């Protein structure tokens, strides 16, 4: 930045930054804007080339139709919410102590353990789909939210551990020593001292786990039937073999993405700080 300023002067540098940011924001927002616009356009406007997006065609018909089948969408959203919330809660409850142990305790070959935990992420979903289906099926858990929670934990927990371990490594050791001087044991120190200052990375990890669980499609496809169907499957149902109802699909997507966006807005400051701390120190 200072190089920019010295080379081109402050005004040119500021303008460059603003233009750069504007391009980046436009680039990032474009898909969301198109999602919103598609959701209020009729099918005929959407299949035109170029799509006819003029104001006169705007309609809420897609939303009205989607709300008409609210039972399916509502059930999908409820299932997604329950699965995502529970996965997130359990991932944090198990991941935080595990990450702290890996960061602070003298775990033999803790670096290798962390790598091993992350290595579980390297298996493609398709490779474990059939064995997983057999196990879940034999346990009688097909079409249950519990099955999805267990499966989602398997790939969210390692990431949560990775993010939080990075943060815990950066916590000044003096804080914990001071707690020890005051008579606090390891668990008390973790609970009373470390966790309260770890809200940003906890939020970052929570939002990450929630979004991953909310959006997951493949395992939801093979492990659910009708009862535990999550929202990505409900949205995908708008595309058939011979017909795709684009507007309704987009309207359902807008409705389903709202809770995730709300969550991201609510915790935005913590998320940014949390990811920065966790990733950089990891």
């Amino acid at each position, binding site marked *: 930045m200072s190089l920019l300023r010295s080379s081109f002067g402050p005004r040119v540098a500021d303008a460059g930054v603003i233009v750069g940011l504007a391009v980046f924001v436009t680039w990032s927002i474009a898909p969301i804007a198109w999602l919103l616009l598609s959701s209020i356009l*009729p*099918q*005929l406007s959407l*299949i*035109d*080339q170029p799509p006819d997006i003029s104001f006169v065609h705007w309609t809420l018909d897609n939303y009205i139709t989607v709300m008409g089948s609210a039972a399916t969408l509502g059930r999908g959203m*409820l*299932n997604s*919410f*329950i699965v995502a*919330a*529970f996965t997130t*809660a359990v991932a944090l409850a198990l991941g935080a102590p595990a990450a702290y142990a890996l960061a602070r305790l003298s775990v033999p070959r803790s670096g290798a353990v962390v790598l091993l935990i992350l290595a579980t992420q390297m298996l493609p979903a398709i490779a474990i*789909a*059939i064995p997983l*289906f*057999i196990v879940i*099926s*034999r346990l*009688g858990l*097909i079409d*249950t*939210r*519990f099955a999805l*929670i267990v499966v989602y934990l398997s790939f969210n927990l390692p990431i949560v551990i990775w993010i939080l371990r990075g943060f815990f490594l950066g916590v000044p050791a003096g804080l914990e020593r001071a707690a020890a001087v005051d008579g606090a044991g390891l668990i008390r120190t973790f609970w009373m001292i470390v966790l309260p200052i770890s809200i940003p990375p906890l939020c970052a990890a929570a939002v990450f786990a929630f979004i991953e669980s909310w959006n997951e499609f493949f395992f939801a*496809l*093979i492990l659910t*039937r*009708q*009862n*535990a169907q999550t929202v990505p*499957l409900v949205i*995908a*149902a*708008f*595309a*058939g*073999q*011979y*017909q*795709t109802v684009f507007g309704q699909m987009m309207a359902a997507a807008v409705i389903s993405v709202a809770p995730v966006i709300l969550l991201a807005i*609510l*915790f935005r400051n913590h998320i940014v700080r949390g990811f920065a701390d966790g990733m950089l120190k990891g």
Partner: protein
Amino acid sequence: MSDDSLLLSRRTLLHGAAGVAAAGVLSEFGVRTGYAADTGLDVFAPLPPDPSPPGAAKFSEAAFAAWQKANDARVKYELLAWPQLHDRMATAFASGTSDWDLVYMCGWVPEFIDSIVPYADTLPASTTADMPPSSFKTVTWDGKRYGAVFTLSLLTLFYNTEHLEIAGLKGPPQTWDDLKRYTKELTRDGRYGWVLDYGDSAGIGGTTSYWMCFLQQAGGTMYNKDGTPAFNSDAGVMALQMMLDLMKLGTDPGSISYAGINDATNVLLSGRASMMMNWPYMWKPAQDPKQSKIIGKLGGAVLPAGPAGTASIDGTDAWTVTASCKNPDLATKLVDFYLSPEVQKRQAIDTGWLPIRISVLSDPEVQKALPNAAVVLEQAKHPYDSFVTQNYNQITQAIGTEIQKALQGRQTAKIAMANASDLVAKIVKQNQ
């Protein structure tokens, strides 16, 4: 909003979320019952508007209820969007834990042969005699009939009558030469003469399957009697050259990237292209003012004839009975009900999916409701084979990739066929 109130609301939100989630997860242990204890029939089928049975799609609902009552049967449908059917089925069958009795198939019979049973010969003769013999081709393996196709779904030609009239073209193209000439003459005023979806190679409705139509029209076939590839022939090259010629003469360039028939259909329905080959179901959305700009302007015809005449491929929407079926006799009876003349007629008129029974296809009421029924019936009198095998997806993927390269101008038809033949020979050898 102050920080405190924000914290409070976040905490409340989190507590509330945890409460709802806990209640939701715990509740399912109380109400859940195992699938194994179910009786009756479990049917796995596509969600409407794709071909779906009565009671799932809106037709013959009263007759379906009456059938269940008369047979003291409870039929439970599990419906899934068509694009996801194969993956869920593959996982369930591969794990040996499928709990379905009756399953919809679309060209996958050879692939799932170990998970289904050859029940179709036990259907009443009065039913099977009224179905085109070719309809059993894609559901027959090792001489045994594993399925019954319930809708006659063949690729035929669809065209915009207004565009043809403007171009001074009388009637649909009859031959390959006509098709090339029409494509060139109809490519004008920002429109294209021809559109199709060449973006996805594999499966029925993929690039390879379109080439298979041209292959049969050129007099070629896919395999020798020993199962080795036979398509690297004059007919195979001629078929691909026909696709390349159409590409140059006026195929919508987007066709290379359209990954599903929906995309190509939308181009025709919006009036941006004049001709395409498509499935019979297209007739219905083309008459819907919410989806189509060409209402009353759609014409249908059999596919233009190549050197060996006209030919097509079959969508093969069929019912199969699983190896784990709890009551195969009842499942067969249910299929026979789905194929009964009255249900077939309502299927056609109420949903747009043509019947498979020839007597119903010839019914004046059906032909009036679906004017393309007569065209499809005519197309069915000529060869149609989808050449499905156990490695159908793998094989069509391999051939389609070579066809796509040719369509993009990266190789000639001759080289593409030679490469595709080598790839398929390897696949066949690996699986022998």
